[in-house]
C-alpha cells in the first residue's frame, strides 16, 4: 500500500505544480461554456434547454485534454519502466494514476460546474442534478480515456489519436449523463433510470479501464 500511496501523492503533486495541467482542464471548461451564450445569443429558454448538454460536452473535451500525458510523461522519462518492474500489479498502478488524474482534473470540473451553470440560466434543482451526474460520470471519462492514453503512450503526438480512439467509447456516458441532467431540468422523464445506468457505466469502466490500459502498456513498452 505504501507504493500506491506514494504514487498517488506524487501524481497529484505533479499535477498541481508548474506544467502539471490540473488547472488547464478547468480553464478550458470555463472558456468553452462561456463561449456558448455568445454564440447562441441571449435566448434564455434555449440556453436552459441545451445547458446540460453543453456542460457535459465541455467536461468531456476538458477531461480528454490532459489525458494524453497520463502515461506518456512517465514513458519519456523512464519512470514507466520502473513502474512496470514493480511488485505492485500494473493494473493497480494504472488505477491509482487514474484516480490521481480524476482528483486533479475531473473533480475541479464538478466543483466549477455550478458556477458556470449560472451562465446557462440553470436553476438550483437543475444545477444539483447536473453536478451529481458530472460527479458520477467524469470518473468513467477518465477511466475509459486511460485505455486510449495507454495505447498512444509511445506516440509523440498521441493527443489526436487519443481523441479519435476514446470519443466514440464515451458516447454512452454522454447520452445517459445528459439524459439524467435533462430529466431534472424538464421533468419529462424519470431521473433514476439514466442515473443508475450512468453509475453502472462508471463502475464498469473502473474495472475494465485499468486492465485494458495495463495490457496495452505491456504491449507498447516492448
Amino acid at each position: 500500500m505504501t507504493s500506491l500511496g506514494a504514487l498517488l501523492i506524487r501524481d497529484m503533486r505533479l499535477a498541481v505544480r508548474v506544467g502539471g495541467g490540473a488547472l488547464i482542464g478547468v480553464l478550458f471548461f470555463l472558456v468553452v461554456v462561456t463561449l456558448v451564450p455568445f454564440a447562441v445569443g441571449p435566448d434564455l429558454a434555449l440556453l436552459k434547454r441545451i445547458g446540460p448538454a453543453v456542460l457535459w460536452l465541455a467536461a468531456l473535451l476538458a477531461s480528454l485534454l490532459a489525458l494524453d500525458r497520463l502515461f506518456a510523461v512517465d514513458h519519456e522519462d523512464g519512470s514507466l519502466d520502473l513502474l512496470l518492474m514493480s511488485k505492485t500489479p500494473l493494473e493497480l498502478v494504472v488505477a491509482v494514476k487514474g484516480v490521481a488524474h480524476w482528483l486533479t482534473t475531473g473533480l475541479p470540473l464538478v466543483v466549477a460546474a455550478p458556477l458556470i451553470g449560472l451562465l446557462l440560466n440553470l436553476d438550483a434543482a437543475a444545477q444539483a442534478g447536473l453536478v451529481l451526474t458530472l460527479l458520477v460520470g467524469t470518473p468513467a471519462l477518465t477511466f475509459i480515456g486511460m485505455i486510449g492514453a495507454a495505447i498512444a503512450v509511445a506516440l509523440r503526438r498521441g493527443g489526436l489519436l487519443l481523441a479519435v480512439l476514446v470519443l466514440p467509447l464515451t458516447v454512452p456516458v454522454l447520452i445517459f449523463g445528459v439524459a439524467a441532467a435533462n430529466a431534472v431540468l424538464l421533468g419529462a422523464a424519470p431521473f433514476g433510470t439514466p442515473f443508475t445506468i450512468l453509475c453502472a457505466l462508471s463502475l464498469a469502466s473502473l474495472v475494465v479501464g485499468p486492465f485494458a490500459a495495463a495490457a496495452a502498456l505491456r504491449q507498447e513498452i516492448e
Partner: protein
Amino acid sequence: MRLSASNLACHRGGREVFAGVSFAVAAGEVLAVTGRNGAGKSSLLRTVVGLVRVAQGSLTLEGCDPELTIAEQAHYLGHQDALKPSLSVAENLKFWAGFLGRKAADIAAALAAVGLDSLADLPAAYLSAGQRRRLSIARLVAVKRPIWLLDEPMSTLDAAAQDRLGGLMRAHLAEGGLILAATHGPLGLPATRELRLDEVGGASAQPSASQQWGAETKLS
C-alpha cells in the same frame, strides 16, 4: 545467489538483436556487457528485468527469495533517469524509495552518498545531466536490492562521481550483491568479467542463430 542465462535470444521490431547468449553471475561478481553500438547491450539488460520478452532461452535466479521475480529484486538504471523536473531532488528520491517499498529509507544519507545533499530542495529541472544521473543512482543506495542492472552507468559522470560510483559498486559487491553493467569504458572494479555481444559478428555481419555470440572471457 546466482543469476544465469542460457541460450538467450531477443527479438525487437521483428529483428533478431542477439541470440545464443549464455552467462552466469554469482554474488559478489560483476559482469560487464560490452559490444558495438546496437549489439544489444541495453536489450539484454531490459530482457533480464522483463521489460523485453524473452524470445528464446531461459533466465534463472537461484538462492534468492523465490516469491519474487528477478525484476522485483533488481535495480535497473536505464538511459533515462526517471526523474520529474517539477519535484525537488529529495521529493524525487523519496517517491522512489516509497514506491519501491522503503518508506523509512534514509533519504539524506542516500543523497550524501552521491554528493547531492546540498541540493536536496532544488527542483530536479535545474540539475545538470551528471547530477540527474547521480540522483538516479541515489535510488540504488536508498533501497537495498541484491541485483544491480546498470546501463552505461559512467556516462555523463565526472571523474569524482565515477570514483564515488565505483565505491558504491564495491560496497554493493562486498555486501553480496551482483552487478550486470552494459558499458563501453572501464568500470574501475577489480576482477570484472566481460560478456562480449559482438564476439563473432562484426559491424557488417548479418546476425544469425548459428553464430556463437555470448562468449565469456576473463579479464584480469
